[in-house]
Protein backbone atom coordinates (compact mmCIF):
# COMPACT_ATOMS: atom_id res chain seq x y z
CA UNK A 1 0.00 0.00 0.00
CA UNK A 2 2.03 2.92 -1.29
CA UNK A 3 1.03 6.27 0.08
CA UNK A 4 1.76 9.27 -2.13
CA UNK A 5 4.98 10.57 -0.62
CA UNK A 6 5.10 14.24 0.28
CA UNK A 7 7.91 14.05 2.83
CA UNK A 8 10.80 11.67 3.08
CA UNK A 9 10.85 10.49 6.68
CA UNK A 10 14.24 9.20 7.78
CA UNK A 11 15.52 7.70 11.01
CA UNK A 12 18.53 5.76 12.24
CA UNK A 13 19.25 3.19 14.88
CA UNK A 14 20.63 4.86 17.96
CA UNK A 15 24.04 3.21 17.99
CA UNK A 16 25.45 6.62 18.81
CA UNK A 17 24.17 9.62 20.68
CA UNK A 18 21.05 11.09 19.00
CA UNK A 19 22.63 14.54 18.76
CA UNK A 20 25.61 12.99 17.04
CA UNK A 21 23.36 11.15 14.61
CA UNK A 22 21.57 14.36 13.81
CA UNK A 23 24.83 16.21 13.19
CA UNK A 24 26.12 13.43 10.96
CA UNK A 25 22.95 13.33 8.91
CA UNK A 26 22.49 17.02 8.21
CA UNK A 27 24.49 17.41 4.95
CA UNK A 28 23.37 14.00 3.73
CA UNK A 29 19.76 15.02 4.31
CA UNK A 30 20.19 18.19 2.26
CA UNK A 31 21.81 16.17 -0.49
CA UNK A 32 18.97 13.64 -0.55
CA UNK A 33 16.42 16.42 -0.56
CA UNK A 34 17.97 17.84 -3.68
CA UNK A 35 18.22 14.42 -5.31
CA UNK A 36 14.63 13.31 -4.66
CA UNK A 37 12.91 16.69 -4.68
CA UNK A 38 11.16 15.76 -1.43
CA UNK A 39 11.64 17.56 1.88
CA UNK A 40 13.59 15.30 4.20
CA UNK A 41 12.67 14.96 7.86
CA UNK A 42 15.05 13.19 10.21
CA UNK A 43 13.88 11.91 13.61
CA UNK A 44 16.60 10.66 15.95
CA UNK A 45 15.38 8.05 18.46
CA UNK A 46 16.99 6.21 21.34
CA UNK A 47 15.27 2.88 20.96
CA UNK A 48 16.20 0.33 18.28
CA UNK A 49 12.76 -1.19 18.29
CA UNK A 50 11.14 2.15 17.55
CA UNK A 51 12.96 2.36 14.21
CA UNK A 52 11.84 -1.10 13.19
CA UNK A 53 8.28 -0.41 14.33
CA UNK A 54 8.35 2.76 12.27
CA UNK A 55 9.52 0.95 9.14
CA UNK A 56 7.06 -1.88 9.58
CA UNK A 57 4.09 0.47 9.98
CA UNK A 58 5.00 2.86 7.17
CA UNK A 59 5.85 5.67 9.54
CA UNK A 60 9.44 5.87 8.25
CA UNK A 61 10.52 5.69 4.60
CA UNK A 62 14.25 5.31 4.89
CA UNK A 63 16.35 4.09 7.81
CA UNK A 64 19.96 3.52 8.66
CA UNK A 65 20.03 0.00 10.11
CA UNK A 66 22.60 -2.31 11.55
CA UNK A 67 22.91 -5.74 10.00
CA UNK A 68 21.08 -7.44 12.80
CA UNK A 69 18.41 -4.76 12.96
CA UNK A 70 17.89 -5.21 9.25
CA UNK A 71 17.37 -8.93 9.78
CA UNK A 72 14.78 -8.14 12.42
CA UNK A 73 13.08 -5.58 10.18
CA UNK A 74 13.03 -8.07 7.33
CA UNK A 75 11.39 -10.64 9.56
CA UNK A 76 8.84 -8.13 10.82
CA UNK A 77 7.91 -7.01 7.32
CA UNK A 78 7.90 -10.52 5.84
CA UNK A 79 10.78 -9.60 3.57
CA UNK A 80 9.24 -6.28 2.58
CA UNK A 81 12.08 -4.09 3.85
CA UNK A 82 14.73 -3.76 1.18
CA UNK A 83 18.36 -2.74 1.75
CA UNK A 84 19.50 -0.40 -1.03
CA UNK A 85 23.08 0.58 -0.30
CA UNK A 86 25.84 0.08 2.21
CA UNK A 87 29.25 1.59 2.79
CA UNK A 88 32.17 -0.18 1.26
CA UNK A 89 33.44 -0.69 4.83
CA UNK A 90 30.24 -2.48 5.89
CA UNK A 91 31.10 -5.51 3.80
CA UNK A 92 34.16 -6.20 5.93
CA UNK A 93 33.03 -4.91 9.29
CA UNK A 94 34.62 -5.85 12.66
CA UNK A 95 34.15 -5.27 16.38
CA UNK A 96 36.85 -4.44 18.92
CA UNK A 97 37.05 -5.86 22.45
CA UNK A 98 38.48 -3.26 24.76
CA UNK A 99 39.88 -3.30 28.30
CA UNK A 100 41.28 -0.54 30.52
CA UNK A 101 44.82 0.42 29.48
CA UNK A 102 46.29 -1.06 32.68
CA UNK A 103 44.42 -4.36 32.45
CA UNK A 104 46.42 -7.55 32.68
CA UNK A 105 44.18 -9.48 30.29
CA UNK A 106 45.91 -10.87 27.19
CA UNK A 107 43.20 -12.95 25.48
CA UNK A 108 39.43 -13.10 25.55
CA UNK A 109 39.63 -16.13 27.83
CA UNK A 110 41.19 -13.93 30.52
CA UNK A 111 37.95 -12.00 30.71
CA UNK A 112 36.07 -14.83 32.43
CA UNK A 113 34.68 -13.58 35.73
CA UNK A 114 34.90 -9.94 34.68
CA UNK A 115 32.09 -7.37 34.39
CA UNK A 116 31.42 -6.88 30.71
CA UNK A 117 29.60 -4.16 28.74
CA UNK A 118 27.82 -4.71 25.45
CA UNK A 119 26.30 -1.84 23.48
CA UNK A 120 22.59 -2.21 22.89
CA UNK A 121 21.05 -5.70 22.95
CA UNK A 122 20.01 -5.47 19.31
CA UNK A 123 23.20 -3.91 18.03
CA UNK A 124 24.98 -6.06 15.47
CA UNK A 125 28.51 -4.97 16.18
CA UNK A 126 28.00 -4.13 19.83
CA UNK A 127 26.17 -7.27 20.88
CA UNK A 128 25.14 -9.93 18.38
CA UNK A 129 28.36 -10.62 16.46
CA UNK A 130 30.72 -10.26 19.44
CA UNK A 131 28.44 -12.60 21.37
CA UNK A 132 28.53 -15.07 18.48
CA UNK A 133 32.31 -14.98 18.28
CA UNK A 134 32.68 -15.21 22.06
CA UNK A 135 30.55 -18.32 22.03
CA UNK A 136 32.69 -19.79 19.30
CA UNK A 137 35.64 -19.13 21.63
CA UNK A 138 33.84 -21.11 24.30
CA UNK A 139 32.68 -18.15 26.38
CA UNK A 140 29.01 -17.93 27.27
CA UNK A 141 28.48 -14.29 28.33
CA UNK A 142 25.61 -14.93 30.73
CA UNK A 143 27.45 -17.74 32.46
CA UNK A 144 31.10 -16.76 32.28
CA UNK A 145 30.98 -13.03 32.99
CA UNK A 146 30.32 -11.79 36.49
CA UNK A 147 27.86 -9.14 35.37
CA UNK A 148 26.67 -8.27 31.89
CA UNK A 149 25.61 -4.67 31.33
CA UNK A 150 24.19 -2.98 28.24
CA UNK A 151 25.61 0.51 27.81
CA UNK A 152 23.12 1.30 25.05
CA UNK A 153 25.58 2.80 22.54
CA UNK A 154 29.11 2.24 21.28
CA UNK A 155 30.67 5.41 22.62
CA UNK A 156 28.99 4.76 25.95
CA UNK A 157 30.70 1.37 26.11
CA UNK A 158 34.07 3.12 25.93
CA UNK A 159 32.98 5.45 28.71
CA UNK A 160 31.90 2.44 30.81
CA UNK A 161 35.28 0.74 30.49
CA UNK A 162 37.29 3.94 30.82
CA UNK A 163 35.59 4.86 34.09
CA UNK A 164 36.06 1.40 35.50
CA UNK A 165 32.37 0.66 35.62
CA UNK A 166 33.01 -2.39 33.44
CA UNK A 167 36.22 -4.41 33.24
CA UNK A 168 35.84 -5.04 29.52
CA UNK A 169 33.54 -4.17 26.65
CA UNK A 170 33.01 -4.40 22.94
CA UNK A 171 32.16 -1.86 20.24
CA UNK A 172 32.31 -1.50 16.50
CA UNK A 173 35.52 -0.72 14.73
CA UNK A 174 34.16 2.30 12.95
CA UNK A 175 33.19 4.19 16.11
CA UNK A 176 36.43 3.09 17.77
CA UNK A 177 38.49 4.53 14.91
CA UNK A 178 36.55 7.76 15.08
CA UNK A 179 37.12 8.11 18.83
CA UNK A 180 40.83 7.42 18.45
CA UNK A 181 41.07 9.97 15.66
CA UNK A 182 39.28 12.56 17.75
CA UNK A 183 41.60 11.78 20.67
CA UNK A 184 38.55 11.18 22.84
CA UNK A 185 39.74 11.26 26.49
CA UNK A 186 37.91 8.05 27.28
CA UNK A 187 39.48 6.26 24.33
CA UNK A 188 42.92 7.16 25.64
CA UNK A 189 42.25 5.24 28.85
CA UNK A 190 41.50 1.90 27.15
CA UNK A 191 43.23 -0.46 24.75
CA UNK A 192 42.04 -2.99 22.22
CA UNK A 193 42.27 -6.57 23.42
CA UNK A 194 41.00 -8.40 20.33
CA UNK A 195 39.24 -7.87 17.00
CA UNK A 196 36.52 -10.09 15.54
CA UNK A 197 36.55 -11.67 12.07
CA UNK A 198 34.72 -9.63 9.42
CA UNK A 199 30.98 -9.66 8.72
CA UNK A 200 28.35 -7.57 6.86
CA UNK A 201 26.90 -4.72 8.84
CA UNK A 202 25.08 -1.40 8.36
CA UNK A 203 22.92 -0.48 5.38
CA UNK A 204 20.27 1.98 4.29
CA UNK A 205 16.89 0.29 4.05
CA UNK A 206 13.61 1.50 2.55
CA UNK A 207 10.22 0.55 3.89
CA UNK A 208 7.97 -1.93 2.14
CA UNK A 209 5.73 -0.26 -0.43
CA UNK A 210 7.79 2.89 -0.95
CA UNK A 211 7.27 4.37 -4.41
CA UNK A 212 9.83 2.52 -6.66
CA UNK A 213 10.72 5.77 -8.38
CA UNK A 214 11.82 7.27 -5.10
CA UNK A 215 13.71 4.11 -4.16
CA UNK A 216 15.54 4.34 -7.45
CA UNK A 217 16.34 8.01 -6.98
CA UNK A 218 17.66 7.34 -3.48
CA UNK A 219 19.87 4.46 -4.58
CA UNK A 220 21.31 6.47 -7.42
CA UNK A 221 21.95 9.45 -5.16
CA UNK A 222 23.90 7.32 -2.69
CA UNK A 223 25.90 5.62 -5.39
CA UNK A 224 26.69 8.95 -7.01
CA UNK A 225 28.52 10.20 -3.95
CA UNK A 226 32.08 10.68 -5.10
CA UNK A 227 35.03 11.14 -2.72
CA UNK A 228 36.71 13.28 -5.34
CA UNK A 229 33.94 15.90 -5.09
CA UNK A 230 34.68 18.11 -2.02
CA UNK A 231 30.99 18.55 -1.15
CA UNK A 232 30.45 14.80 -1.33
CA UNK A 233 33.64 14.17 0.57
CA UNK A 234 32.17 15.98 3.58
CA UNK A 235 29.08 13.81 3.48
CA UNK A 236 31.06 10.62 3.11
CA UNK A 237 33.45 11.71 5.84
CA UNK A 238 30.63 12.20 8.30
CA UNK A 239 29.19 8.83 7.38
CA UNK A 240 32.68 7.39 7.81
CA UNK A 241 32.36 5.88 4.32
CA UNK A 242 34.89 5.78 1.48
CA UNK A 243 31.94 5.33 -0.87
CA UNK A 244 28.55 3.59 -1.01
CA UNK A 245 28.03 0.30 -2.84
CA UNK A 246 24.81 -1.56 -3.71
CA UNK A 247 23.75 -4.32 -1.36
CA UNK A 248 21.10 -7.00 -1.20
CA UNK A 249 19.13 -8.83 1.43
CA UNK A 250 20.96 -12.11 1.03
CA UNK A 251 24.20 -10.49 2.26
CA UNK A 252 22.67 -10.64 5.72
CA UNK A 253 21.72 -14.32 5.80
CA UNK A 254 24.97 -14.97 7.66
CA UNK A 255 23.94 -12.60 10.41
CA UNK A 256 20.57 -14.27 10.65
CA UNK A 257 22.33 -17.60 11.12
CA UNK A 258 24.61 -16.11 13.74
CA UNK A 259 21.61 -14.62 15.51
CA UNK A 260 19.90 -17.99 15.54
CA UNK A 261 22.93 -19.80 16.89
CA UNK A 262 23.44 -17.14 19.59
CA UNK A 263 19.82 -17.63 20.56
CA UNK A 264 18.85 -14.02 19.80
CA UNK A 265 16.47 -14.95 16.99
CA UNK A 266 13.85 -17.56 17.67
Amino acid sequence: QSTPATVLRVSAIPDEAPTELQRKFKPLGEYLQKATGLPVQFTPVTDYAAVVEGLATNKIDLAWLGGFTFVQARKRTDGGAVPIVQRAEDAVFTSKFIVPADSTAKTLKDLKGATFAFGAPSSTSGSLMPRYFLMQDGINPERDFKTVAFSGAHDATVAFVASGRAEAGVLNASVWDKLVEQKNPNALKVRVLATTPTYYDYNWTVRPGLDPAITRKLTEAFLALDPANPAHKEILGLQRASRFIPTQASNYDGIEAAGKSAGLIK
Partner: protein
Amino acid sequence: MNPAAGFSPETSASLRDPLARRRLTLLVLALVLLWPALHVAQFRPAALFDANSLRVMGGFLAGFVPPSTDSEFLKLLGRATLETLAMATAGMALAFVLAVPLSLVVTRSLSVSRIGPGPGRWPAAAVRAAARSLLMVLRACPEVVWALLFVRAFGLGPAAGVLALAITYGGMLGKVYSEILESVDTRPARALLEAGSGRLAALGYGLLPAAAQELASYTVYRWECAVRASVVMGFVGAGGLGQLMDQSMKMLNGGEASSILIVFLLLVLLADGVSMLLRKVLA
Protein backbone atom coordinates in the same frame (compact mmCIF):
# COMPACT_ATOMS: atom_id res chain seq x y z
CA MET B 1 -18.46 4.00 88.85
CA ASN B 2 -16.20 2.06 91.13
CA PRO B 3 -12.60 3.20 90.94
CA ALA B 4 -11.39 0.05 92.62
CA ALA B 5 -12.89 -2.10 89.86
CA GLY B 6 -9.65 -1.97 87.86
CA PHE B 7 -7.92 -4.30 90.23
CA SER B 8 -10.16 -7.32 90.33
CA PRO B 9 -8.51 -10.40 88.77
CA GLU B 10 -11.03 -10.43 85.96
CA THR B 11 -10.14 -6.94 84.78
CA SER B 12 -6.41 -7.36 85.18
CA ALA B 13 -6.67 -9.81 82.29
CA SER B 14 -8.44 -7.11 80.30
CA LEU B 15 -5.43 -4.87 80.87
CA ARG B 16 -3.35 -6.98 78.53
CA ASP B 17 -2.95 -5.29 75.18
CA PRO B 18 -4.87 -7.41 72.65
CA LEU B 19 -2.66 -6.17 69.81
CA ALA B 20 0.67 -6.98 71.44
CA ARG B 21 1.01 -10.46 70.02
CA ARG B 22 0.10 -9.43 66.48
CA ARG B 23 2.56 -6.56 66.56
CA LEU B 24 5.35 -8.82 67.73
CA THR B 25 4.60 -11.40 65.04
CA LEU B 26 4.64 -8.75 62.33
CA LEU B 27 7.94 -7.39 63.56
CA VAL B 28 9.57 -10.80 63.56
CA LEU B 29 8.12 -11.56 60.13
CA ALA B 30 9.49 -8.32 58.71
CA LEU B 31 12.95 -9.05 60.06
CA VAL B 32 12.87 -12.58 58.67
CA LEU B 33 11.94 -11.26 55.21
CA LEU B 34 14.52 -8.51 55.31
CA TRP B 35 17.44 -10.89 55.54
CA PRO B 36 17.12 -12.62 52.15
CA ALA B 37 16.34 -9.24 50.55
CA LEU B 38 19.62 -7.85 51.85
CA HIS B 39 21.35 -10.87 50.47
CA VAL B 40 19.80 -10.72 47.00
CA ALA B 41 20.52 -7.01 46.71
CA GLN B 42 24.16 -7.58 47.74
CA PHE B 43 23.75 -5.02 50.45
CA ARG B 44 27.20 -3.99 51.69
CA PRO B 45 27.37 -0.44 52.93
CA ALA B 46 31.08 -0.84 53.57
CA ALA B 47 31.59 -0.44 49.82
CA LEU B 48 30.49 3.15 50.22
CA PHE B 49 33.67 4.01 52.03
CA ASP B 50 36.14 2.26 49.81
CA ALA B 51 38.97 4.76 49.27
CA ASN B 52 39.54 3.80 45.66
CA SER B 53 35.96 4.22 44.53
CA LEU B 54 35.68 7.45 46.46
CA ARG B 55 38.61 8.70 44.41
CA VAL B 56 37.01 7.62 41.11
CA MET B 57 33.80 9.27 42.23
CA GLY B 58 35.60 12.42 43.25
CA GLY B 59 37.34 12.60 39.89
CA PHE B 60 34.02 12.19 38.16
CA LEU B 61 32.30 14.82 40.23
CA ALA B 62 35.22 17.18 39.65
CA GLY B 63 34.28 17.00 35.97
CA PHE B 64 30.91 18.55 36.90
CA VAL B 65 32.51 21.97 37.38
CA PRO B 66 32.37 24.18 35.56
CA PRO B 67 28.98 23.51 33.97
CA SER B 68 29.15 23.49 30.21
CA THR B 69 28.35 26.90 28.77
CA ASP B 70 29.17 26.02 25.17
CA SER B 71 26.71 28.12 23.16
CA GLU B 72 25.83 25.26 20.80
CA PHE B 73 25.00 23.08 23.78
CA LEU B 74 23.07 25.80 25.55
CA LYS B 75 20.92 26.29 22.47
CA LEU B 76 20.24 22.56 22.39
CA LEU B 77 19.49 22.67 26.10
CA GLY B 78 17.11 25.57 25.74
CA ARG B 79 15.17 23.89 23.02
CA ALA B 80 15.06 20.59 24.90
CA THR B 81 13.79 22.42 27.99
CA LEU B 82 10.95 24.01 26.09
CA GLU B 83 10.06 20.74 24.39
CA THR B 84 10.13 18.93 27.69
CA LEU B 85 7.94 21.49 29.40
CA ALA B 86 5.41 21.32 26.58
CA MET B 87 5.37 17.53 26.55
CA ALA B 88 5.11 17.28 30.32
CA THR B 89 2.26 19.79 30.41
CA ALA B 90 0.34 18.19 27.56
CA GLY B 91 0.93 14.71 28.99
CA MET B 92 -0.25 15.77 32.42
CA ALA B 93 -3.35 17.42 31.01
CA LEU B 94 -4.30 14.19 29.27
CA ALA B 95 -3.40 12.13 32.33
CA PHE B 96 -5.61 14.37 34.45
CA VAL B 97 -8.54 13.92 32.12
CA LEU B 98 -8.03 10.17 32.28
CA ALA B 99 -7.44 9.98 36.04
CA VAL B 100 -10.26 12.11 37.41
CA PRO B 101 -13.24 10.00 36.31
CA LEU B 102 -11.47 6.77 37.19
CA SER B 103 -10.49 7.99 40.63
CA LEU B 104 -14.03 9.13 41.30
CA VAL B 105 -15.26 5.67 40.47
CA VAL B 106 -12.66 4.03 42.67
CA THR B 107 -12.99 6.26 45.74
CA ARG B 108 -14.83 4.38 48.46
CA SER B 109 -15.67 7.44 50.46
CA LEU B 110 -17.88 8.60 47.56
CA SER B 111 -19.75 5.35 47.19
CA VAL B 112 -23.45 5.67 47.90
CA SER B 113 -24.09 1.95 47.85
CA ARG B 114 -21.66 1.35 50.71
CA ILE B 115 -23.98 3.21 53.05
CA GLY B 116 -26.02 0.61 54.72
CA PRO B 117 -24.88 -1.21 52.56
CA GLY B 118 -27.64 -0.30 50.18
CA PRO B 119 -28.93 -1.35 46.78
CA GLY B 120 -26.45 -2.01 43.99
CA ARG B 121 -23.71 -2.87 46.40
CA TRP B 122 -22.25 -5.75 44.45
CA PRO B 123 -22.36 -4.13 41.01
CA ALA B 124 -20.78 -1.02 42.51
CA ALA B 125 -18.07 -3.07 44.18
CA ALA B 126 -17.43 -4.85 40.89
CA VAL B 127 -17.17 -1.58 38.97
CA ARG B 128 -14.79 -0.26 41.60
CA ALA B 129 -12.64 -3.35 41.39
CA ALA B 130 -12.63 -3.17 37.59
CA ALA B 131 -11.64 0.48 37.56
CA ARG B 132 -8.97 -0.24 40.11
CA SER B 133 -7.49 -3.01 37.99
CA LEU B 134 -7.67 -0.78 34.94
CA LEU B 135 -5.66 1.85 36.79
CA MET B 136 -3.19 -0.82 37.73
CA VAL B 137 -2.76 -2.05 34.18
CA LEU B 138 -2.31 1.50 32.96
CA ARG B 139 0.55 2.15 35.29
CA ALA B 140 2.11 -1.30 35.57
CA CYS B 141 2.75 -1.59 31.85
CA PRO B 142 6.13 0.08 31.24
CA GLU B 143 6.15 3.35 29.31
CA VAL B 144 8.31 1.84 26.56
CA VAL B 145 5.62 -0.66 25.71
CA TRP B 146 2.98 2.05 25.49
CA ALA B 147 5.33 4.21 23.46
CA LEU B 148 6.00 1.40 20.97
CA LEU B 149 2.27 0.82 20.76
CA PHE B 150 1.50 4.43 19.95
CA VAL B 151 4.33 4.71 17.45
CA ARG B 152 2.11 2.55 15.32
CA ALA B 153 -0.56 5.21 15.35
CA PHE B 154 1.43 8.41 15.33
CA GLY B 155 4.79 7.50 13.91
CA LEU B 156 7.99 8.80 15.46
CA GLY B 157 7.66 12.09 17.29
CA PRO B 158 6.25 13.63 20.43
CA ALA B 159 2.67 12.39 20.04
CA ALA B 160 3.49 8.77 20.88
CA GLY B 161 5.65 9.81 23.82
CA VAL B 162 3.08 12.21 25.22
CA LEU B 163 0.37 9.62 25.02
CA ALA B 164 2.52 6.95 26.65
CA LEU B 165 3.23 9.38 29.45
CA ALA B 166 -0.43 10.31 29.75
CA ILE B 167 -1.49 6.69 30.07
CA THR B 168 1.00 5.66 32.75
CA TYR B 169 0.63 8.90 34.67
CA GLY B 170 -3.14 8.66 34.38
CA GLY B 171 -2.90 5.32 36.17
CA MET B 172 -0.74 6.76 38.91
CA LEU B 173 -2.76 9.94 39.40
CA GLY B 174 -5.99 8.00 39.53
CA LYS B 175 -4.73 5.77 42.28
CA VAL B 176 -3.18 8.51 44.34
CA TYR B 177 -6.16 10.82 43.98
CA SER B 178 -8.50 8.19 45.31
CA GLU B 179 -6.16 7.41 48.19
CA ILE B 180 -5.98 11.06 49.15
CA LEU B 181 -9.75 11.34 48.99
CA GLU B 182 -10.04 8.34 51.26
CA SER B 183 -7.55 9.52 53.84
CA VAL B 184 -8.94 12.95 54.67
CA ASP B 185 -11.88 13.28 57.07
CA THR B 186 -14.62 11.58 55.09
CA ARG B 187 -17.47 12.28 57.50
CA PRO B 188 -18.66 15.46 55.77
CA ALA B 189 -18.96 13.69 52.41
CA ARG B 190 -20.67 10.77 53.99
CA ALA B 191 -23.17 13.05 55.71
CA LEU B 192 -23.99 14.65 52.37
CA LEU B 193 -24.43 11.32 50.61
CA GLU B 194 -26.73 10.28 53.43
CA ALA B 195 -28.79 13.39 52.72
CA GLY B 196 -29.26 12.30 49.12
CA SER B 197 -26.61 14.40 47.43
CA GLY B 198 -24.86 13.20 44.29
CA ARG B 199 -21.27 12.00 44.11
CA LEU B 200 -19.82 15.09 42.52
CA ALA B 201 -21.64 17.42 44.88
CA ALA B 202 -20.45 15.38 47.86
CA LEU B 203 -16.94 15.63 46.44
CA GLY B 204 -17.18 19.39 46.10
CA TYR B 205 -18.76 20.14 49.45
CA GLY B 206 -17.44 17.31 51.58
CA LEU B 207 -14.01 16.22 50.39
CA LEU B 208 -12.39 18.89 48.26
CA PRO B 209 -12.26 21.59 50.93
CA ALA B 210 -10.07 19.26 52.96
CA ALA B 211 -8.24 17.51 50.12
CA ALA B 212 -7.79 20.13 47.42
CA GLN B 213 -4.42 21.30 48.61
CA GLU B 214 -2.99 17.85 48.79
CA LEU B 215 -4.41 16.92 45.40
CA ALA B 216 -2.91 20.03 43.85
CA SER B 217 0.48 19.54 45.34
CA TYR B 218 0.55 15.94 44.20
CA THR B 219 -0.45 16.90 40.67
CA VAL B 220 2.31 19.47 40.46
CA TYR B 221 4.76 16.93 41.77
CA ARG B 222 3.72 14.52 39.04
CA TRP B 223 4.22 17.22 36.45
CA GLU B 224 7.71 17.63 37.75
CA CYS B 225 8.24 13.86 37.39
CA ALA B 226 6.97 14.10 33.84
CA VAL B 227 9.67 16.65 33.12
CA ARG B 228 12.30 14.26 34.40
CA ALA B 229 10.76 11.25 32.71
CA SER B 230 11.28 12.59 29.22
CA VAL B 231 13.83 9.80 28.73
CA VAL B 232 10.88 7.78 27.53
CA MET B 233 10.16 10.41 24.96
CA GLY B 234 13.60 9.93 23.54
CA PHE B 235 12.80 6.29 22.76
CA VAL B 236 10.36 7.39 20.12
CA GLY B 237 12.14 10.43 18.84
CA ALA B 238 10.65 13.24 20.88
CA GLY B 239 13.91 14.31 22.41
CA GLY B 240 13.81 16.40 25.54
CA LEU B 241 15.87 16.96 28.65
CA GLY B 242 15.76 13.43 29.94
CA GLN B 243 17.31 12.09 26.79
CA LEU B 244 19.99 14.77 26.83
CA MET B 245 20.81 13.91 30.43
CA ASP B 246 20.91 10.21 29.72
CA GLN B 247 23.34 10.79 26.94
CA SER B 248 25.64 13.14 28.84
CA MET B 249 25.80 10.77 31.76
CA LYS B 250 26.54 7.76 29.61
CA MET B 251 29.33 9.65 27.94
CA LEU B 252 30.49 10.82 31.38
CA ASN B 253 30.40 14.40 30.19
CA GLY B 254 30.29 16.08 33.60
CA GLY B 255 30.06 19.66 32.37
CA GLU B 256 27.00 18.99 30.25
CA ALA B 257 25.46 16.85 32.95
CA SER B 258 25.79 19.57 35.54
CA SER B 259 24.27 22.16 33.18
CA ILE B 260 21.28 19.88 32.72
CA LEU B 261 21.08 19.17 36.42
CA ILE B 262 20.94 22.88 37.09
CA VAL B 263 18.02 23.15 34.68
CA PHE B 264 16.33 20.24 36.46
CA LEU B 265 16.85 21.92 39.79
CA LEU B 266 15.43 25.18 38.50
CA LEU B 267 12.39 23.36 37.14
CA VAL B 268 11.90 21.59 40.44
CA LEU B 269 12.06 24.92 42.24
CA LEU B 270 9.57 26.30 39.75
CA ALA B 271 7.28 23.37 40.43
CA ASP B 272 7.61 23.99 44.16
CA GLY B 273 6.65 27.59 43.61
CA VAL B 274 3.63 26.65 41.53
CA SER B 275 2.61 24.11 44.14
CA MET B 276 2.85 26.71 46.89
CA LEU B 277 0.85 29.16 44.81
CA LEU B 278 -1.89 26.64 44.10
CA ARG B 279 -2.13 25.66 47.72
CA LYS B 280 -2.55 29.29 48.66
CA VAL B 281 -5.23 29.78 46.05
CA LEU B 282 -7.09 26.71 47.26
CA ALA B 283 -6.85 27.54 50.97
